[in-house]
Each structure stands twice: as C-alpha cells, then as structure tokens.
C-alpha cells in the first residue's frame, strides 16, 4: 500500500509539492483552511520580473493536483497526534487523516501596517498597502486615490515591517523591493502623467532579471528612487499625504506631498504557521518562522522526525524560490519515506 503524506497549506508550496509527491506514487492529502487554493498568489495580478499573470501560474499549479491529490478545503486542524512514527490529523468538523509524513506549507501573512502608526495607515485615507494597490490592478478599474482623485504624485515606501527593529522584524522580506519596482512601472504605464517616488534603504535586486527591471524603471519610466527611510507621514488639508524623510545620499531632510502613499508591507510568519507550530511543538527561529534543522544542508527538515517544511513558512521567498523549495521538500520527504537517513552527513560534518 502506498505511504501516506499529508500536506498542510494549499498555497504555492503546498500545491507544487503535492503534485510531485502524488506523481511519485504517494497517497497525498492536501489540507487548505480556506475555500480556495493558491494562497497569496490569488491576490497578485502580475508577477515580477516577467509581468506574467499570477493566474497563469495558479492554473499551472492547479493542473498538477487535479487528479491524484485528495484536496480538502475549509480544513481547520484541531489536533495532530503522533503515534510511533505515524501521524493522525483531526479536523474540527470530525474528519481524520493518517500520515507517514507531514509536509508543512503554512506560509506567511503580510505585516499589519497599523503597527507602524507613524506611517498613517488606517488613520489617513490615502495611505494604502502594496496588497491593496495590487487589488486595484486586479479589479482593472482606473487608478484613483481612496478619496477619489487621480493621483499626480505617488510615494512607495519600502521595508514597511521589514528590517525594522522597532516593529520586531529585523529580517529582509526579499520580495518588496522588486514588487515596488514592478508596481511603480505598472502605475506609470496606467497613469502616464504620474510622478513616482520610491523611498528605499537598499535596493535588493538579487534575483535574475531584477536588476534590469530596476534599470528599466529608472531609464524608461523615470521613476525616482530616493535612499531614505520615511520618518513620519501626516495629512494635509486636501487629504494629500505629507511625508518627512531624509534623503541620505544628498544628506538633507526632505518634505514631499503625495496624493497616494503605498506601503510595501513585508512578510511575517502566518497565523497558521504559528498555530501549527504551537500545536506540534515545532521549533521557531529568532525571526518567528520555523527553524530548519540545518541552515545549509537540512533546509526542509524540522525538529520532529517525519515532519518537513516547504515554502515561506521558513522565511520570506519569491514564487520562484517557493516552487524550487517545494520540489526540494518532495525529495526530502520521499527520501525519508524510503528509509534514507537524511541527517547522517549533516551530523558527520556539522554536529
């Protein structure tokens, strides 16, 4: 009889790893807490750096799990019992599943920008998040500020909730810089007369083709990139947003009024990541994401034998990285189920 794998979380990592595991002959159940699969991918219209539609990637992922994966939607996990080497997962509505291995793909949530109160999100109408801007793109309507104006000046603030000790997140969320570049280009394409200012700490254009996208933004679209972190935002009489920031290259303080302020919110460990972690006593790292058994050599392995990770539950990742990580997790899970001692080399070298 085929060995059973339960995958928790039906985002990119969960879908791609389920597809491969099922194709390899394992009996795969994919649990998703919501009614639809795809996770955050459903909320992004176009993807960097290719500008491909998110929907196309979603369709690709769906095709992988269409026939061989047992997909359970609206699955809220109540309990996970470990009996010898097997796991028993009980859902709130009574169903229960057995597994020889668990793959956790619970992903991330977006940083709650109200925690950065000085940026005015939730206080001033014309301050929105990158996710809300993307929603506007999705809906395909003309771009207006929340107070109903066509924006002439837009500010994009990088690193909101990332690399910021003051909100308790010291890590880089990896995708926001390039998302800002992508969204700035899209805004410029939709509103040709608009002036766009990106305020960054460093431009982290590490991925393939990211740098050329950044170059394109500057040269082709005349988007302004100013090195400096926003100190505070307040509202003018006309509900435009006055931002105070230091231009750290010019070395002088800067005040600028924008019609729309977009906060590039970072990744935080998802609620599901926290809950499943507590339920199973999985180890968390200092940043609150799951801690992998070794940073270089056991990147999909948890502290509990038979429990594995894939995707951004172990840290911020792009879609490309998530797909790669999901497939890496599949080889790790399969190796474990076939009796290969994953840790023997790591132990020999590093422990």
């Amino acid at each position, binding site marked *: 009889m085929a060995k059973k794998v339960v995958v928790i979380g039906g985002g990119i990592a969960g879908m791609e790893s389920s597809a491969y595991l099922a194709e390899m002959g394992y009996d795969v159940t994919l649990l998703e807490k919501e009614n639809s699969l795809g996770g955050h991918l459903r909320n992004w219209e176009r993807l960097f750096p290719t500008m491909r539609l998110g929907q196309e990637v979603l369709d690709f992922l769906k095709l992988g799990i269409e026939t061989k994966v047992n997909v359970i939607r609206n699955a809220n996990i109540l309990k996970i019992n470990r009996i010898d080497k097997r796991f028993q997962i009980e859902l709130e509505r009574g169903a229960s599943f057995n597994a020889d291995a668990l793959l956790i793909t619970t992903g991330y949530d977006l940083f709650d920008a109200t*925690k950065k*109160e*000085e940026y*005015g999100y939730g*206080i*001033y109408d014309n301050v929105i998040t990158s996710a809300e801007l993307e929603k506007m793109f999705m809906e395909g309507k003309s771009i207006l500020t929340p107070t109903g104006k066509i924006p002439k000046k837009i500010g994009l603030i990088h690193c909101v909730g990332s690399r910021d*000790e*003051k*909100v*308790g997140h010291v890590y880089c969320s990896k995708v926001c810089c390039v998302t800002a570049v992508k969204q700035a280009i899209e805004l410029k394409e939709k509103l040709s007369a608009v002036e766009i200012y990106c305020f960054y700490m460093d431009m982290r254009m590490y991925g393939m083709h990211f740098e050329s996208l950044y170059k394109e933004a500057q040269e082709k679209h005349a988007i302004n990139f100013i090195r400096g972190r926003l100190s*505070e*935002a*307040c509202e003018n009489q006309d509900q435009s947003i006055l931002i105070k920031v230091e231009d750290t290259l010019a070395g002088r303080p800067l005040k600028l009024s924008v019609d729309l302020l977009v906060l590039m919110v970072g990744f935080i460990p998802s609620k599901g990541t926290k809950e499943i972690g507590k339920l199973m006593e999985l180890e968390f790292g200092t940043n609150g994401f799951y801690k992998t058994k070794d940073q270089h050599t056991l990147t999909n392995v948890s502290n509990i034998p038979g429990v594995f990770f894939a995707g951004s539950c172990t840290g911020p990742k792009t879609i490309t990285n998530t797909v790669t990580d999901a497939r890496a997790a599949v080889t790790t899970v399969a190796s474990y189920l076939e009796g290969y001692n994953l840790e023997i080399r790591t132990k020999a070298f590093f422990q």
Partner: protein
Amino acid sequence: MNFDWFVLPFSIGLFLLFILVIFKISFWIRQLPLNDRLLLNKGIFSLKILRVIKEVILESLLHLRIFKINPLLGFMHMSFAFGWFMLIAIGNLESRMYAGTELNLPYYPIFFKFFIHKPLEIPFAEGFTFIMDFFLLLVLSGVLIAFSKRIYSKIVGLKRTTKLKAFDIFAMLSLWLIFPLRLFAESSAAGMYHTGGFMTQPIGNAFAGFLPLDTLSYIFWWAYSISLGVFFVCLPYSRYMHIPTEIILIAFRHFGIHRSKEYDIFKDVEVFSCSRCGICIDKCQLNTMAQVTNIQSAYFIKSIRKKNQQEEIVQNCLICGRCQEFCPVGIKTDDLRLSQRMIFENKENANFNYLPPQTPIKTEVLYFAGCMTHLTPSIKLSMVNILKNSKIPFKFMDEEESICCGRPLMLSGNTKDAQKLMQANIEIICSSQAHTLVTSCPICLRIFKEEYNLNINVLHHSQFIENLITEGKIRVQTSTKTISYHDPCDLGRGLGIYDEPRSILAHTGTLLKNNFEKNNSLCCGGSIANNQNYNLNKDKISKQVIEHLSSKNPDIIATACPLCKKTFVKYSDIRVADIAEIVNEQMILLHSS
C-alpha cells in the same frame, strides 16, 4: 581602674573611626556653599532638629520604610540598628549606674561583664541583664536572617541581593562576628560568675560543663574586641559608612539644603548614605526582566564612591524611577544618574540655527503634541478632535514645525544644548499669552513642569480631558469594554499623576486592576533615557510587561504616553490605545447651538 590589654583593639578602632568620620563630615560641611551652611546652622538650633531626630529614630533605627517593602527584611535591618543601639545605650546606662560616675572609658560598658563578676548591686539589676540579653538575641536573629539572605535572598522577598567584593565581605563578616562573639564572651563570663541573663546564663552553664572556661573566656573577649576594632576601621571605607552619613542626609533634607543638577556635596552625602541593601536591585526591571545585573543603583552609587565611573553603568538605565521610589534612604537615584551623565556628555556645542522661524500665535490653550505623539498620529488627531469639540479656543503649537522639548538631551546629560531648545519653546509659549499648555507626552510634560518655569497651567492631556468632562465641556459615553491601565513612568512616578487617567477610564469602561499599579508600575521598556544599544533587553522587558497587562484579558490596554503605546504595539495581541483615543471614540458630539 579597670583595664585589660584586650580592650585595645576596640579602643583603637573606635578612636580611628571617630577621627575618620569627624574628618569626613567636616569636609562635607566645609564644602557646602555658604548659603547652605547658613541653613545648616539655622536648622540645628531650630525646631527642625526634632523632625530630624524623629526621622533618624524611625528610619535609621527602626527602618519603617523597609518594613513596608518586606517585613522580614525590615526586621533584619531594624534588629541590627535598633538592637545594637539599645545594647550600647542600655549598656552605658547600666555601667554608669554601677560605677556611679559619668566618666567611664568607652570600652567599659562594652566589656562590663568582663570586669564585673559579682551579681550587680544596682537597682533593676535583673532587669538590666534581661534587657541586655533580649537585645543581643534581637541582633543575633538579624545576623541569622542576614546570613540566610546571602544564601537564599528570596527569604526576604528579594530575587537577587547585592553582589559583594572581597573587602565588602570582610567588613560584613567582621560585623556579623561581633554578636556571636559577644554572646560567647558574655556566656563564658556567666558560666564562671553567674552574671548572665535568660540566654547567656544557660549557654554559660552549658559551656562550663565541657569547656575550660578560665582560658577560653579570655580568648573570647579578645576575639570580641578584635572583631569590633576591625569593623570600626572598615566602616568608613565600606558600605557601613551609611550609618553615620544617613543622619547627615536626613538633617540636610530637613534643613532645606538642596541638590543642584551637577554632582555636589549633597549628592556626595547621598552616595555615602547608600547601604547597598539591594532593594533597588530587586526593583530594577533590567535585572528582573533582562538579566542585566551590574548597573543597578547600588552598584552605580558604589562606582561613584570608588571614583570608578564606567559609561555603561551610568548610561544603561531606563530612569524609570522604580529604584528611587522604593529606596529606603530616599536617595534621588535618577538625579544622581543624570548628574553623572553630564560627565559623558557630548562636549560639542550644537548649532540649532536651522530651527524654523516661528510665526507668533495668540490663543487661550496651547496644545503641544511632542515628537512621540507625531509618531502616533491617532493620539494627535484624537486630541485635536476633543479640543475642537470642547469649543475651547486653542492653537496646535507644533502642528507643522516642531521644536523638541529638550528632555531627550537633558536625559543624555546634555543640559546646555537642552537649554537652547527650551529657550526657543519658551519664547513661543510666552508670546502666545495662553493660560494653559496641554501636552500628550509625559516626557515633554515633565520638562515643561520641572525646567521651563512657566507661569501658566501646564497639563497632561489626561488632566485636561478630566477637567473637560467634569466641567461638562465634553460628554463621554460609557461602554462594556474592560481596560487595563498602564501608568507611564514620567506621568506617574515622575509627576504623581495617577488618578486623572483612572477617573477618565472609569467613564469609558470597566477598569481592571493589575499587580503593578501607580508608584509600583512597570516601565514599558521603551524609555528614551537608555542610550545604550539595548534593543534586545528592551524587547524582553516589553514582552513581560505586556504579559502582566494582558493577564486579565482586557479589551484594551490603555496608557497615557505615546512612547508606551508605540512600545506595546510591537508585541501586544490586545489593542493598545491612549486615553485620548478612547475618549475621542466614545465622545458624544455636541451640536453647535
């Protein structure tokens, strides 16, 4: 004449102690400014001296303040101070009555039982032996507690007690040894001559049963005298200097001698008054919540005394005032630390020419948000809305261009630069002709009240809002929400504003009690006064404070300081809100008539 060679260590020690203490005290008095010396002279010959005596009895002998913090710890301090004092006082009385003269040498009452062997022929003789035994027992019980405290400090309610260096331990042991040695010496005398009381006699009888008392007794008297002599010589150089100094400090305070901002003689007296009792260590959140164990006031004061100033000890402090609040000697530890920060201040003269030119404003009420409130705009907008709704004419002093109140510089010891900013703000405030200055930030409020010398009402917004509610200028709806209130350090311990925020919150919902309220409230951890790089410790503190505030699962954690709010929001799962925001949300809008 009664004399034996063994009295020499005691006598020499006492003589040296006397010389050294007199020298030190006269040094302090000579260093006092003329004005303060006059106050001192006047004070000594006024009725104020009675208040000094009263406080010396209550605090230096009975240690009532420590009793309030922990009864057993209070008892320990009281047994040493009061017990020993009574032994000396009654011993003197006894020996004088017996000898019939007032001119005894100091050692005579101390070693009375060595010289006098026959049962006493003075009135109340039995009473005397009983009382002397009783007070010796009292001190011995103190020694026992002190010893236990060193092994397991939780016995007196302290998580940690003061860490001691070799010399401190030597001085402490010499003190501890005095009393068992006195017990042995007096008991052996009692064993031989039947001069003992309820405690020394039975012990003496037991000793007589198996010990060669004729030789041993003499050794005990020598040892007793040596331990006294050693302790006396150690005293001026050890923490026990606090015994004479505390009396001077109490007198200075009652006579109205004030400290200045800089380190002065008053502060020197405070430094020598510290007994390193360890209460400050136990109250310090950097110790209890972040395991920083080397910077607490007892160690900080010691470093001043040893002239061994280390920047870390001076700077790594929240200036939350918890140690000051509970210091049984009443040392103003915050002031002391700020005066030491001046040593490390940046000597460069800041240039504030870039400050924006101010357009003069005229109004009745001036609202100053402060920079932290600008970083928590929801508080600022709530206050503006409340002010508008109250129909009181007001102007928003730092709406667009704000000048810092100066307190962050003051807290870093940079008094001169702070003065420049203060001057700029004072000009705006005075030219506005406002009768009231309202601020949302307790950090600003404190410097406005303590340093600005404004002749107008200076209020925190909680006080101002409370007035608005009682005068009916705004109306607030109640709700079913449960609220846990956090006292900000500068508002609470700093300025004693505890009731107004509570009174407002009682209007808006149900106020829950927590374990750390009012003067015992905790610091949120976000203090701007700590200019060491200590983010990790800050987080440890914040998380634990949030846990305390969340323990009853309130709907809202309320505070009255933008910095506390910002600090809590980072880790709190429960909504954190300033009082102004809560009032604004529940304010019934009055229709303009």
